[in-house]
């Protein structure tokens, strides 16, 4: 028995490894060769959304936590990166404050900007702050056994609060946000070679994130997370604290979203409250839902597919995308909760059952006496 499961595990890690290698070749060799600079940059942006989606897949699909506020963590990462880039640009030009501040008449750098002038602090901030915020909220919410809809609404309210806070602060760009970054850690952003490098960083990050999520899903922790999603009380009776298990998944999802935001800033070149508010926060979910929330690759591929469809569609029908997005939410969440990833097993099951029925029919023809015995057994029970 053990040898069989070991073999199965070996087999599954072999497929995972080959899939990983295939994705790496696709991202690092094929994409840069096939796509124009513009399209490659676009794909890099989609990869950022895919990184967020991988985290949502873990928290929502596996952990059952409907997080409507991933924009918060995305935004923290993005704004910290944007502040750092603004300050290094200003320093290179010999200015005390970033350009937009000079225009709006702010002569002195606000104190909350100062720490992010140094690159290590900014990177630490990107890696730590989103997870920290998630840990504080998660601790406050999950420890008191606030869950389900209540958690969803609170996570959404957090996104609204952050978006309103940022909109109201002129010192961080207000409504228009931060834009016009010239360089990324000393590399000029106008140079196509450097932009390609950004794509490679995003692609590499996505691969690492997917590998991390896979390891988490296949670990004891991953099993506990699913157990908490399906039967929280039983897990509590077994001696675990479901709150801790949930907090970890929520923090990991926030950590990914923060990194994605930090990459989004130099790739897209602008970050504003409109990118991180309530609607974009919920919009992150649709790719995850379409791809298949409980699977490893579903959220990632779904996010890329939806972002691609959005770009392609809104080029032609500006208002059409909103309708389609609405309809997708209704149809996918309402009627195909398992997403596209669930459609394949369903079809396969359908085909299998057809196939098995024909096989069974053959068996019945060969040995009809077996069939007559079985119904009697059932009836005597």
């Amino acid at each position, binding site marked *: 028995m053990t040898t069989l499961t070991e073999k199965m595990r070996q087999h599954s890690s072999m497929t995972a490894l080959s899939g990983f290698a295939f994705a790496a070749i696709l991202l690092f060799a094929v994409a840069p060769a096939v796509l124009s600079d513009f399209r490659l940059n676009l794909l890099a942006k989609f990869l950022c959304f895919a990184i967020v989606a991988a985290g949502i897949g873990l928290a929502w699909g596996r952990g059952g936590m409907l997080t409507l506020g991933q924009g918060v963590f995305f935004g923290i990462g993005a704004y910290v990166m944007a502040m750092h880039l603004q300050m290094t640009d200003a320093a290179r030009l010999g200015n005390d404050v970033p350009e937009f501040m000079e225009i709006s008449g702010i002569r002195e750098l606000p104190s909350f900007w100062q720490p992010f002038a140094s690159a290590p602090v900014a990177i630490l901030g990107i890696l730590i702050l989103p997870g920290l915020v998630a840990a504080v909220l998660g601790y406050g919410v999950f420890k008191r056994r606030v869950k389900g809809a209540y958690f969803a609404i*609170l996570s959404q*309210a957090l996104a609204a609060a952050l978006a*309103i806070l940022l909109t109201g602060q002129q010192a961080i760009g207000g409504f228009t946000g931060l834009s016009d970054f010239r360089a990324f850690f000393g590399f000029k952003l106008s140079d196509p070679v450097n932009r390609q490098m950004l794509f490679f960083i995003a692609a590499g990050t996505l691969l690492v994130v997917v590998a991390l999520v896979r390891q988490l899903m296949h670990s004891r922790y991953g099993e506990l997370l699913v157990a908490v999603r399906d039967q929280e009380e039983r897990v509590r009776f077994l001696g675990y604290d479901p709150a801790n298990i949930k907090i970890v998944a929520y923090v990991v999802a926030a950590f990914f979203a923060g990194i994605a935001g930090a990459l989004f800033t130099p790739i897209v070149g602008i970050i504003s409250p409109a990118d991180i508010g309530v609607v974009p926060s919920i919009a992150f979910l649709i790719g995850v839902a379409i791809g298949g929330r409980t699977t490893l690759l579903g959220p990632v591929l779904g996010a890329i597919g939806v972002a691609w469809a959005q770009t392609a569609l809104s080029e032609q029908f500006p208002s059409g995308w*909103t309708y389609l997005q609405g309809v997708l*939410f*209704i149809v996918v969440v309402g009627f195909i909760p398992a997403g596209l990833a669930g459609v394949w097993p369903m079809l396969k099951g359908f085909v299998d059952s057809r196939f098995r029925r024909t096989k069974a029919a053959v068996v019945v023809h060969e040995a009809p006496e077996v069939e007559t015995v079985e119904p009697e057994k059932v009836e005597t029970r």
Partner: protein
Amino acid sequence: MDVVIGQLFTGLSLGSILLLAALGLSLTFGQMGVINMAHGEFIMAGCYTTFVVQKVISSAGVSLFVSLLIGFLVGGVLGAALEMGLIRWMYDRPLDTLLVTFGVGLVLQQLARDIFGAPAKNVLAPSWLSGGVDIMGAVVPKTRIFILVLAVVAVTVLAVVLKTTPLGRRIRAVVQNRGLAETSGVSSRFTDISTFFIGSGLAGVAGVALTLIGSTSPTIGQSYLIDAFLVVVIGGLGQIKGTVIAAFALGLLNSFIEYSTTASIAKVIVFAAIVIFLQVRPQGLFTVRTRSLA
């Protein structure tokens, strides 16, 4: 002193708006366990109803009262349609209703944008609502007093309907024990639809009220929806009493914090206060322990 009175009335007025927006939500979220994200768009529908009615009836005084009636019906019909078309299939999946109704909200919002255009529309307030009333040195706009009165009337009517009418009894029966109510001959389908009709109708009324204090845009519902949800969360599920107290508490808290800081920081402080409050009472102010949400 007049500053305190002024802030007090700002808070009460904000509270009454929150109450109008949250009352219907509390009915559908609290009583039925459905998280209706399209509620904000039903509020928006109420706003645009007022705009259209005023195009037809130019007398602002008459059109306001006609709008209140039609706004209730428009919201109610939208809600009943939503219940019959989508939500009835997903009563066992509360979190998914949230996303599905969000999709409905997106569609309605874009529909409003395509029909009425993205720029904000204004509705004329009746002349007898212009100007303000001097209350102990503070000038309070008459429109805000009207909204306060409207909120009180809406709560009273809803409470009376739930408490005394046969429909109200059926709604409470279905909420407390769906199976037993059905065995006793109550049609739970009809009750579900009626509850949705009333809850969404109240959103329409809230929308009509909102046109008195600001202009109407396709995103107007969204800006009130999250606060309305928070009111329901604090108030506790399915409790009119809790919703009333929570709405005014949030309104007052917001207006007094806003006075000493800024509007955006007040939002963040209020949010933090809510999370801290939930540490003390995770189930809200008052709760009926029934049909708990997953």
